[in-house]
């Protein structure tokens, strides 16, 4: 990153290759919208170019890039409109005929994740999928480490409740759409 800061744009290509997939998954799991997620990933790297001078040597790059990623998303929704609350019909389809129970569980879990409030979903994604440590997440979201742990604990309990409710839901509510809709392309941010 220091090379990028000092003007070596080619090095940013290396960072793009390394971080585009984690960032894409961060946004996809958070928003459920692949197209928007791709746009936001591009926005993150554009911001790195624009604000590279603000990067300080010694700062963990991973934490810095996620800070930019969070800000890019917040700015996006500020510019467009508030996020549409999750509706069951936005959920990815489950194919009950699919013999792979694991796949069905995974799809239910995705739906349960999308039912969580965004702050809790984001916290789970950062800690579980982006493999950030609690202290890194605490600095990112601007709270104490203990608070992050409490919120993770609560988020998991809430996720479990949502997951149970979906498992207990009548099967006809799980039959909408087709399996190839998963993962969802667009869930809540129609322009």
């Amino acid at each position: 990153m220091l090379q990028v800061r000092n003007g070596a744009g080619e090095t940013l290509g290396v960072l793009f290759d390394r971080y585009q997939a984690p960032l894409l998954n961060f946004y996809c799991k958070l928003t459920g919208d692949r197209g928007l997620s791709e746009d936001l990933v591009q926005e993150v790297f554009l911001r790195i170019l624009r604000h590279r001078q603000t990067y300080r040597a010694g700062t963990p790059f991973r934490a810095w890039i996620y800070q930019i990623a969070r800000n890019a998303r917040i700015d996006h929704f500020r510019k467009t409109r508030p996020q549409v609350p999750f509706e069951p019909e936005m959920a990815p389809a489950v194919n009950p005929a699919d013999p792979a129970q694991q796949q069905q569980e995974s799809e239910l879990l995705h739906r349960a994740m999308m039912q969580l409030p965004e702050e809790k979903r984001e916290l789970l994604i950062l800690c579980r999928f982006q493999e950030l440590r609690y202290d890194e997440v605490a600095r990112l979201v601007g709270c104490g480490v203990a608070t992050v742990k409490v919120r993770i604990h609560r988020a998991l309990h809430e996720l479990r409740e949502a997951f149970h409710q979906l498992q207990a839901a009548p099967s006809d509510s799980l039959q909408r759409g087709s399996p190839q809709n998963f993962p969802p392309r667009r869930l809540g941010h129609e322009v």
Partner: protein
Amino acid sequence: MKCEQIAELLPDYLQEALRPEQSKIIEQHLAACADCTEVVALWKKLATLPDEQPSPAARERFDAVLHAWQSGRAENLSTEKRPSLGNIFDWLRSPVGAVAWSLALLALGAFVGLQLGATKSSSQDLAAMHSELAAMRQLVALSMLQQESASQRLEGVSWTRREDRLDPQVLSALKHTLRYDPSVDVRLAALDALSRHAAQQPQVRNSVFDALQEQQSPLVQVALIDQLVEWRDPQAAQHLEKLRQSPNLNPTVRQRADWAISKLN
């Protein structure tokens, strides 16, 4: 140990950040508590959520941005010299410098005038002053849009954002920038600036329709398409359809155009 006590350690256990003896305490609790075991299982199950793979088009799009940035940077390095006293005087003699000086003097004059003639000042005088200031700002914007350096042209575009309503000359310069500026960044900035005035100056939309058919940069094309969707203009669909017919259209742009048409219909 009770669930409440375990709850303090459980998040660290999930991230494998506990000492071995602490982990053992958790595991003993888990062996006897279905509730906590389920939470741990759910955490592990999260790993089964599928990962999205980036598309090759994402890298192409990024390369286009990087290329535009590098071109702009090379241009800046070749045209911009280190500031020296001589350069400052050169700049003050340049059209941009002259306009900036005039603007500063006008502001100073306005301030002094208001201080000295406070009793005589009227709303008409103030309105005239505002109008003159706006004209000067638009002149600065026009001058900067003509500069060779991309960063200066970007600054010129940002000057136009300070106006509530664009002067026809500035509007025309912005339209020209959107269509023909060699820098992608400057074209994108021009689109952003124009879009702010679309509600009051409907002719802005026509310039976006025209630019849509002429642009070659996928990045700008996608931005234009998104803008049309945001406006929900009744004519947008036919322009997008025309774009779709272009034989050498970038697949990502075609996909975005398809999406936009479906949104507008």
